[in-house]
């Protein structure tokens, strides 16, 4: 038995305390936008916000989550995909298969909360989720767009050229 606050709603769930938060979100609460990708906190497909902090939910025991902790999943990020990050994702046409994108978006939102004008280096450091389709270049562009970074900064590393 655990009491959780997910997307602003109180939820009572019947689970063993060592159940990963990811599987509680997916199987008990029924929110499937948060994805299973590795189970060992490597890929980030399961990323949610726990009290505003980006968290890989596959590696959090539900027994360690307090009833007062605020959990936000992709479904609770905004109404009608209206968050600036979601809008930027649409404008840049980021997703391919889409499976990892919930986690990517949650990671980008958390980054922008901490660093509203991230540099490429900030994005490199924060956006560590795995995407097998290879949408990385567009993720970088969309993060800059969501941040309102000027267009020249969006043209990534061209430092290799002399002129």
């Amino acid at each position: 038995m655990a009491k959780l606050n997910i997307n602003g709603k109180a939820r009572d769930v019947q689970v063993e305390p060592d159940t990963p938060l990811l599987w509680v979100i997916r199987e008990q609460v029924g929110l499937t936008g948060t994805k299973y990708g590795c189970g060992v906190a490597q890929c980030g497909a399961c990323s949610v916000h726990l009290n505003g902090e980006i968290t890989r939910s596959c590696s959090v025991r539900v027994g360690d989550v307090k009833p007062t902790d605020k959990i936000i999943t992709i479904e609770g990020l905004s109404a009608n995909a209206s968050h600036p990050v979601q809008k930027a994702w649409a404008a840049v046409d980021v997703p391919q298969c889409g499976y990892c994108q919930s986690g990517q978006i949650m990671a980008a939102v958390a980054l922008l909360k901490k660093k509203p004008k991230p540099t490429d280096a900030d994005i490199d450091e924060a956006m560590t989720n795995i995407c097998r389709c290879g949408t990385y270049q567009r993720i970088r562009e969309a993060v800059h767009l969501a941040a309102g970074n000027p267009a020249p900064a969006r043209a990534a590393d061209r430092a290799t050229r002399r002129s």
Partner: protein
Amino acid sequence: MKKMVFGNGQRLSRRNFVVGSAALAGGGLALGLNVPFAGEAAAQSGANELNVWVAIKPDDTCVIRIARSEMGQGTLTGLAQLVAEELECDWKKVTTEGITPSRNLASKRAWGDMSTGGSRGIRTSQDYVRRAGAAARIMLLQAAADQWKVPVGDLTVSNGVISHAASKRTISYGKIAAAAAKVAPPDQKAIKLKDPKDWKIAGKPLHRLDTADKLNGSKLYAIDVKLPGMLNAAIKDAPVFGAKVVSFDEAKIAKMPGVKKVVKVKDTAVAVVADTWWHAKTALEALPITWDEAENGKVSDATIAEHLKAGLAATENNGERKNGDALAAIAGAAKKVEATYYTPFVSHACMEMMNATVKLSSDKAEAWVATQNLEAALAALGEESGVPLAKCDVHRYDLGGGFGRRAGGHDYLRQAVTIAKEFPDTPVKLIWSREEDQAHDFYRPVAMCKMSAGLDEKGNLIGLHVKSSGQSINAWSNPAGIVGGKDRRQMQGWWEEPGDAQLGYTVPNLLIEYVMRNTHVPVGPWRGVNTNQNGIFMECFIEECARASGKDSLEFRRALMSNHPKHLAVLNAAAEKGDWGKPLLPGVHRGIAQFMGYGSYSAATAEVSVSKQGKLKVHRMVLATNCGHAVNPHQIAAQVEGGVAYGLSALFYGEMKIDKGRVTNTNFDTYEILRLAEMPKVETVVVPTHDFWGGVGEPTICVAAPAVLNALMAAIGRPIRNLPLKNEKLV
């Protein structure tokens, strides 16, 4: 009775329909289609069906049917663009509807081949889907002409609105569609399609149609299926490939939370079924299982390497291309170059791991599954369940990654059927853990290749001998693809024949040999298939030859390409946009490569540096591709970027470590994947010549790794010949 070979090599009786066989990437097959205008499809509610591909609702919504699978590659959007182009509808009013294989079967395959592999999704359906769009337009115009009693030739159409200029009348598609549906369809063969130069929707860099629900968590993948009363299953297949289950101790886990049953799946696997997947997985991990590993338990990376090495010295011939006398030319050459390369097994690692949900009743079988070949999935469901195909149904889901892993075989679906047999009338969802997914893939095959060349006094390449020893995909999954002992597919990219995967060089004395050396490790098509290894072997060795000749890498290649103008044009495009020959910052070095696969021509440049600590950084890559007609340049660029990420991930890290017969690196902590920080800036240069239809999803991957390796050679002054790079010291 005729037999058909399926993706996993299992044979299936030809029942009352023909399934596009293996659908393995690179297989290049398309069976006879009874195409469009069969007119037997069930009409979408509220929509007027003009033919099997197009239905129009009264509110002007144009429903375009899609048969091929969508796994991120953008085929859905591209196919819709091609139909909409000929239909002359309003792109903003287009929606798509996925066809299920049962519906295709019931309609005598009105939608043709549904398989999605080999970068064929658009190029092998473009003709009939465009004709369907045009036929619908002709019917809509005819209906308006009939209603207004004017000659159809006096009408024009734009954005789904038909106009009669003389009378200033207009009508939208939605308003005339019901009447148009009753117009006799035109002869599809007689329709003159638009010249692609006149395209307004196709050929444009449009956004995808299928993005919205990927942004808010609402898109349902097969792994997300929820059904009333559904149980969940976790599975462990024998860690040693081919090993058998001897016993398991069900009593040890019977009382664990949620556990319903332990099911032996075929001879090799054990599944635990529980109320939730987490319960099933937890119990499975606690279940004692003993296996009979037999001889396979002795196989390791080292024994496999010896096996391949022996192949390099062997004399049997499983594929050959020959002109002149390469061995004599090399023996008598002024200068000789020799190198041996190695590429390991690599997993697909789709983000959505393998899974399937199956419900079996006494007279019905249903599956909810993501697959690159829906018809083969239907056949697998029927075969495995014993339920007649007409009573089988496969619910289609977009794939959370395919890359060839879901192209055939349907091992995960077959397992799910076996498990579901224990629970009649109950849906059972089988999900593989990441560890299971990594340990039981059909991997990109292992290969070793010895290359020898002779240069004359002027540094010209006068003789080239390629001897490749490696595992055959066809031997594993499609023995019919090996004809007279020759496995042409293993030489993909080195072929003489134009059109698909032709070697772009003319060498006066050439000998290419393939020696088959199979292992017990399963192999299959992996994005780009054999063009990956063959592209690395050929392009890295050509680079070594260019360096030995003292010539510029680009000029050395150009001198061999005069008979291959399309290859050359793409190489030139990459060189030009990649600033070939222009100065770089100190420490940054450039490499180049070209290769061909899937009917399209590709070339790339890469700019890299190596830090004092030996860390490789790929700064920038320029990839050029000629895919003939470019249906959506924006999505082509996305596929090029994706190919770079997939190819470089394998180049840097990809390697299944085989020890005691099993894969030992089974999650992303031990099997690393390329991440955003390592992604180079990719510039895509699309140079279509508008005279053929080539593939897009796979062709460019084969130049990504060799371009980087050649830049790396320039940076460190020596070639790296064993992959992945993580095992090599770069300083």
